[in-house]
């Protein structure tokens, strides 16, 4: 068996559909105030589990993401501000 694999951090827009991940950090400074506020409203926060579910048909944008018990759609550009670590 291989040694326990510690997956590396990546931005949420690069996470594959169907992969669960934990939010490590969110670069709030790169978002404008209303956008940051909306992300918080959706429950995005450090430590929360997220999972990309669907991708938009054109340019794989926006991304539908499960966060907590909710499914929300955000653009790829905003997902780039969220850093995650895949679970297993």
């Amino acid at each position, binding site marked *: 068996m291989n040694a326990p694999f510690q997956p590396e951090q990546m931005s949420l827009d690069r996470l594959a559909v169907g992969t669960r991940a934990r939010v490590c950090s969110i670069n709030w400074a790169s978002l404008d105030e209303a956008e940051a506020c909306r992300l918080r*409203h959706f429950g995005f926060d450090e430590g929360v589990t997220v999972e990309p579910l*669907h991708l*938009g048909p054109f340019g794989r*944008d926006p991304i539908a993401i499960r966060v907590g*018990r909710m499914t929300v*759609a955000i653009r790829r550009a*905003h997902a780039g501000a969220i850093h995650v670590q895949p679970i297993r």
Partner: protein
Amino acid sequence: MNPLPLVAVAGSPNAGKSALFNALTGARQKVGNYPGVTVERHSGRLTLADGRPVEMVDLPGAYSLEPASPDEAVTRDVLLGKQAGEREPDALVIVLDASNLDNHLRFALQLIELGLPTIIALNMVDLAKRDGLELDSQRLAAELRVPVIETVAVRRRGISELQAALDDMLSAPFCGVHKHVKSDLVHLQRRAREIATAAVVSETPVRRWTHRLDGVLLHPVIGPIILALIMFVMFQAVFAWSQLPVSWIADAVAWLSNTVSAALPAGLLRSMVVDGVIAGVGAVITFLPQILILFFFILLLEGTGYMVRAAFLMDKLMHGVGLSGRAFIPLLSSFACAVPGIMATRTIDDPKDRLTTILVAPLMTCSARLPVYTLIIAAFIPNRQLVWGVGLQGVVMFGLYIIGITGALLAALVLRRGVLKGSGGGFMMELPKYQWPPLKDVAIGILTRAQIFLKRAGTIILGTTIILWALASVPEAGSGQKQSEVSIAGHIATGIEKVVKPIGFNHDISLALLPAMAAREVAVSAIATVYSIDSPDERAGAQKLQDNLHRRWSLATALAFLAWFVFAPQCISTIAVTRRETNGWRWPLFMVTYLFALAYLAAGATYWIAVAAGLGGT
């Protein structure tokens, strides 16, 4: 006079707030499923057990008291007693989605902090069960220290219990302190998660319906195809399903016209009733079935939660022209009517995004254009089947919608590069669970539309029709003269004709354009009235009107007329709502100018091309 106690219904979007409000008050209100369907103030009355009336107000859905949209700002201001035209609420009903507690509780915690007497409606407990979630509402009540009632608003379950709790609460003397503690969202969110976890009795993972459906409906290839099919079926249905009821109404109008003609002596009164009122209003009422079918589809798409998926699929394309997927919902609503569409833009956070959406919304083919399109298409486009189930007339209609959509996207692109330059706002939306909307709520929505339409027919359309009849009837034409030319209306039309002649518009159209400013469908009643006055011996009826058009207009003129109506801003209500939503005359004037210019160019281009193609003869 002491005002009634005011109870505000608040909650996050998609908690089923509007459905609960409907169940409590029986008010006629649209029930939707996407964030922000409630953008207007909706109020209703509730009678307590002891007979005391209470006023209920349904606040726009919000995620917290820190607004991220104008919509949420209204909610905050009402709750803090800062909203103009609204008194401070005396009590609060907070609606929570039982299967989304960890998110919705955050807003609830913030609301409870306000210190108002509060009840929590733990809504959609049935859907939570379906998802394998068992909750302990007693535990929740203990944690939050407010009463919690389990409800399923769309099935009216738990409503009487909620009423009883309201009754108790409003009977108790209240002398709390109203305060707003500006809380730290992150802290609230963590507390919300703790409480939610405590309230969950058991959770069995089940395969969620919504996820499976989304696998198909949001599929990168199948999803857009299904969206296109839904739109196509919707517009075909508007034509196909309406044929029978339309013919009934047309027969009834013809019968009424003949009966009244026989009963009244020849003269001014008979002319006014038969040529003015019955011919004019009758021609418009004929289109009621089509308008209702269109609204049926839109209400169904909203109610099931599909509308947000459509926004998801369309976002990238909308982004390409400087709009967001959020604009898709107001724009799709504008297919029914631009007025609610423009009001629905309040859910768009970015001001420039919002203004662009408002300015292009009138290009979406609203239901008031249907009478005009239908009449012209029926008169000039042969009723031929292209392939089984797809008629040529339906395809032309679909084409007109496509031209409107394309025009809107191009206009948005130009506006975003020019007067409304700036970076686009984002696209962040919740995808609610799919749900079959209660048919009663859909029926209420359709009935409300029917009432509004008939009221318009009875007021604006009736009024303009009578005025037009009067202007078209005096002075009376001598022998050999045409009434539509020597009358006052005829002279006005002759003036307008000078401007619109180059784009192929004849005297009849010129006559119809002015009253059609009141509402587009008046164009149909105006033409019907004019022909009826010109040849009083003929009996009214849709068939007669079509024959007349066919005789008097060339195909090129008819096509130019259609092109005109794709773009022309002929609707006072739209202009008025734009003024209200943009706080001034600047943008409505801009809108009217660019749309008239587009209409003139489009009609002109259509006419010149059609004439060159040899379609200029009658």
